[in-house]
């Protein structure tokens, strides 16, 4: 088919639920492609050679992107076959495509260097990845592929314990199971998924889809033990006695709090508490679900990352007015562009260069306003390349009867406090070597537990790299035994 490529500069759009409708519920905002439109979008790709394709380099787990797009295009009249072949290519590098296709910041990763971006819109790689995963799930194509991938899955090569069931842990577990290890995941909460289940809301990542992605791992033979807090229910040392190796993927789930007056007033939530109540406990379905959640009429969200955006958009759906207050400027926001855009569309207001200095309460101990100092940007940049800011000495007070703090998260200390041999950095992240091994031989770690707050795909990349290192470690250990 040596036809001269005709460049289609513009993206094939994906439909979205209209704003008026979606702000009233937690339904998924983006509806994704159907086969016909996915095919059209895939056909825009000019098929750069895999050894050079910049999109592959931009993807932290190096999915063969032109490869899966090609697979889609090769069977235009047989969608099932096309999707099966595309999914096979994706699964080689990524076992949770329905998740990553939805939550990755593709504009900074695979889509940023896409050649088509130089002449028009980059290929909509994320939505295509999502399409492949969604179609396969809906049409029962996964089962067949799973059998292929389970070729080694007899669990006889050794036993590995994985701590935490976020993207890092799940990926590591899946990879090891595929290699033939017996894997047990220990999870503190009552549902697996980490941030994917308790942090990211339904309107971005439907939990039904996540559950199915996780069910797939169970089919690969991975056992998931819920309600198990490693460091309390079972110690790291005990795990090392029972398993050949351990992977720690406990994330960075502890919220940072502002150390300013009024922080303990009623109706001041951390974003984690707010989102956990909504996502994990389904408090938005109260009283059908028992978990309560209370918001007033005016909510201020402090911060401007993904967490802040998710909290703001969730609060909005509970019927309150929402303002995001950020101490830096619009261009410094760290949330995904798509989400900032959605938040604006839905009516979230933004206030920039405001740094909270005090929460003001009423007689009953409830928050009623937030006092901010106005900030000013400097030319100088910090380590992360963001503009530095300084206070102006001017203040402004905004009314709010609900406040959600989303200024960042740090690693949970339960394990490192109990296992004293486990070295940590001053910020609580675990120290690892180039093989992702911690200071305790046989104990590996990855994801937010070693990086601090990062991304889903980086966590998955770590999980995968650690699985390889664990395999090598166990082989060596068994050879020497």
């Amino acid at each position, binding site marked *: 088919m040596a036809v001269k490529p005709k460049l289609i500069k513009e993206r094939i759009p994906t439909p979205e639920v209209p704003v008026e409708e979606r702000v009233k519920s937690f339904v998924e905002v983006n509806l994704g492609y159907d086969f016909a439109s996915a095919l059209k979008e895939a056909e825009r790709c000019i098929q750069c050679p895999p050894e050079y394709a910049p999109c592959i380099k931009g993807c932290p787990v190096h999915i063969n992107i032109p490869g899966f797009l090609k697979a889609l295009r090769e069977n235009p009249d047989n969608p099932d076959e096309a999707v099966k072949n595309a999914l096979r290519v994706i699964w080689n590098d990524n076992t949770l495509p329905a998740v990553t296709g939805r939550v990755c910041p593709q504009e900074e990763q695979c889509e940023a260097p896409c050649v088509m971006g130089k002449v028009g819109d980059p290929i909509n790689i994320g939505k295509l990845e999502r399409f492949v995963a969604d179609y396969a799930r809906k049409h029962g194509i996964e089962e067949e592929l799973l059998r292929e991938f389970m070729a080694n899955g007899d669990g006889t090569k050794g036993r590995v314990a994985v701590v935490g069931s976020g993207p890092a842990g799940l990926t590591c577990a899946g990879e090891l199971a595929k290699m033939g290890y017996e894997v047990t995941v220990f999870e503190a909460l*009552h549902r697996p998924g980490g941030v994917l289940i308790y942090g990211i809301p339904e309107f971005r990542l439907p939990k039904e889809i996540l559950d199915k992605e996780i069910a797939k791992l169970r089919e690969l033979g991975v056992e998931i033990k*819920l309600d198990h807090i490693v460091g309390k229910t079972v110690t790291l040392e005990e795990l090392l006695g029972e398993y050949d190796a351990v992977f720690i993927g406990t994330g960075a789930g502890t919220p940072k709090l502002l150390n300013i007056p009024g922080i303990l007033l009623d109706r001041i939530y951390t974003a984690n508490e707010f989102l956990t109540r909504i996502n994990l406990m389904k408090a938005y379905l109260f009283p059908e679900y028992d978990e309560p959640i209370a918001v007033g009429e005016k909510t201020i969200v402090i911060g401007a990352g993904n967490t802040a955006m998710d909290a703001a958009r969730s609060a909005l759906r509970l019927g309150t007015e929402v303002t995001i207050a950020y101490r830096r400027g619009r261009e410094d926001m760290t949330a995904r562009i798509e989400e900032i855009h959605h938040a604006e569309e839905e009516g979230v207001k933004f206030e920039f260069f405001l740094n909270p200095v005090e929460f003001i309460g009423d007689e009953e*101990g409830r928050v009623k306003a937030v006092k901010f100092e106005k900030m000013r940007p400097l030319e100088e940049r910090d380590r992360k390349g963001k503009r530095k800011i300084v206070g102006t000495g001017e203040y402004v007070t905004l009314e709010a009867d609900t406040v959600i703090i989303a200024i960042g998260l740090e690693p949970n200390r339960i394990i490192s406090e109990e296992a004293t041999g486990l070295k940590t950095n001053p910020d609580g992240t675990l120290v690892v070597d180039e093989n992702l091994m911690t200071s305790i031989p046989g104990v590996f770690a990855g994801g937010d537990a070693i990086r601090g707050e990062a991304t889903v795909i980086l966590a998955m990349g770590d999980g995968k790299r650690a699985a390889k290192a664990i395999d090598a470690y166990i082989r060596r250990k068994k050879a020497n035994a």
Partner: protein
Amino acid sequence: MYKILEKKEIAMRNTWYKIHAPHVARKVQPGQFVIVRAFKNGERIPLTPVMWDREEGWIVLIVFTRGKTTARMAAELREGDEILNIAGPLGNPVEMKKFGKILAIGAYTGIVEVYPIAKAWQELGNDVTTLHVTFEPMVVLKGEMENAVGRHILETVQIDMTKSFPENMKNVTKRLTEKVRELLEKEHFDLVFMVGPSGDQRAVFEVVKEFGVPMKADLHPIMVDGTGMCGACRVTVGGEVKFACIDGPEFDAYKVDWDVLISRSGYYTDMEMMAMQEYMKVLQGGGQ
């Protein structure tokens, strides 16, 4: 899924659950708690293993019927049913050492949390006196306490049906503070420990402070995950914000900011909303 081996009402609004939960039973230490999710659409609530058998793999929880979840548990759960989730043990064990002479106080169902701690302190060679102050029909663990510690003092308060529940609760607070004062005036204690509503904890603390006796208290802020992930349980201790689920639940009473804790837990206001008599009707009517 954790099977309920035994369930019985051991006093008014107090239910005893013996549950198969080997992962908790093998590790739990006095002072630690669990997070329980009993129903599919249910919330997570903190409760305390009162007794356990590491070999047989069971724990005992004693639950005060307070609001929706605990009432649903009392009404809907049967022996042989399974509890969906029990996560734990959580929190830090209490310090196990020889303090000397200890006064361990439990108000209402708080005494069930005192039990494993007081028992272990006594076994370690401390001279433990326990004090239980509650309404008359709510006495629990009297025999167990008497067997476990040097001396168990029970002080009951009558419920006056003509008065509101908060009015009745004030009588408990009064009896508590009077009794503590009486004990501290007569005897020397090296440590006071207390579990109960935060308002009562503060009232007792005010008395203990006059005598300069060290005091520890188990704090009960609202909890969601119980693993340090949400900050719902934050309290100020010694001027610093702490998470009760991972830094506590036990803290030095002299360092706790009681005002903030009380305004955040709103214990009395909640109690007010529950008409006591309504509840008694529910219980007598078999829980429908």
